[in-house]
């Protein structure tokens, strides 16, 4: 069992790793994709629900205080950006992934389910954020289907693969270490 100071530091370091995730771009034409979602899900899978959630909360706070660690920069102004919902989802996605995968020696299928559920949390927040932003901040009427078309369909396949990769990585790492939650 880890003590509170240890968990606190791990959460902080995973916040740093998630920040790095925005910069680790995989070149894949036409749009290069980042490893961010992968690291969000991994922080939940490796650190457990509470610590994973804390790490993502810290990541958001750091981005809001002006570090350029979100995909499009950083700063408080990011709250108004249409894609803020996706970022706001990270703590909850990490919590969900951690919660569903707890227990030692988690089998791969359980990790995969946890990662996919975490991913669906990101999309649920992201799509609602996009919908609210466009309808109420930009005050133009878009239907939920239009939002799905711009906010889900272009990204869902790479993201599903990232969720699978997160489960796979967590499985590989978890089988080497015994102190994971």
């Amino acid at each position: 069992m880890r003590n509170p100071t240890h968990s606190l530091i791990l959460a902080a370091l995973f916040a740093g790793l998630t920040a790095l995730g925005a910069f680790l771009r995989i070149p894949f034409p036409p749009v290069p994709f980042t490893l961010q979602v992968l690291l969000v899900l991994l922080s939940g899978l490796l650190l457990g629900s509470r610590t994973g959630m804390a790490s993502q909360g810290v990541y958001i706070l750091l981005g809001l205080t002006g570090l350029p660690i979100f995909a499009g920069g950083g700063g408080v102004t990011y709250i108004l950006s249409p894609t803020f919902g996706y970022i706001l989802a990270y703590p909850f996605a990490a919590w969900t992934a951690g919660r569903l995968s707890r227990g030692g020696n988690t089998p791969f299928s359980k990790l995969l389910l946890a990662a996919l559920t975490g991913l669906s949390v990101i999309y649920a927040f992201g799509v609602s954020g996009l919908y609210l932003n466009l309808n109420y901040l930009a005050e133009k009427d878009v239907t939920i289907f239009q939002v799905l078309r711009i906010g889900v369909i272009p990204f869902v396949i790479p993201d599903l693969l990232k969720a699978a990769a997160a489960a796979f990585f967590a499985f590989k790492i978890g089988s080497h270490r015994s102190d994971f939650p």
Partner: protein
Amino acid sequence: MKFLNHLTFGQYIPAESPVHTLDPRAKILSVLVLLTGIFLVRHPLAFIPWGLLLAGLTALSRLPFSMVLRSAKPVLILVIFTSLIHIFFTDGRPLIDLRIVVVTREGVTMAVYMGLRLLFLVLFASFLTLTTKPMELSDGLERLFSPLVPLGFPAHELAMMMTIALRFIPTLLDETDRILKAQLARGASFDRGGIWKRLKAFLPVLIPLFVIVFARAEDLATAMESRNYRGGEGRTRMNPLRWTGADTAALGGILLFVALLFLADRRFLS
């Protein structure tokens, strides 16, 4: 081959100005008041005094105006898009009739109003991060949230985690760069094959990275505990925040400005 050199650090622009030296708490609260004020604006003309305030604040904080404008970049597309939508799709008295699209007087007014509102929201919010170091902000947030501590809100822990993350991001960046280069030298390729293959190519990068992170965390936890770290209770600081008359004056001035403008907007313009 440099993978990770996009990270120029932070939005903060150092300068010797009365705005920079304000207490971070005063700045956080002032920005909240300003943003609320902008949301309450009803008439496009009311944005003129807001523009003057923006210019005044920029001059007072000794920031180059271009830097302030640049902070609007993340939402620029949204601003333009919103304005265009409103120009073309608002009913009212036609101004220009192009058969397919009709530009109405109301549409133009709406477009200007919506565009300016978004733009001002972003620009005023950006002052906070342009004039305050991330560390000061996290200190300020810790103190602002401290009344919630008895309810179980981890104000100190969040601030401490922000400090540690801030300290370690450059280190992690260096380590990642090193591992990437080491794997490349051993024949790894990150830009060939399908998505799945490219993702899997990161396994030999992430595993050493996680090993480093877990080892660091253990070292740091031991180091902190052997120096008697036990959370926020009774902890003192090297540079305590000090709320001065200038902070009260700044917050008061902003409140007065927003209140007066709100009254003027409702009374004479709407």
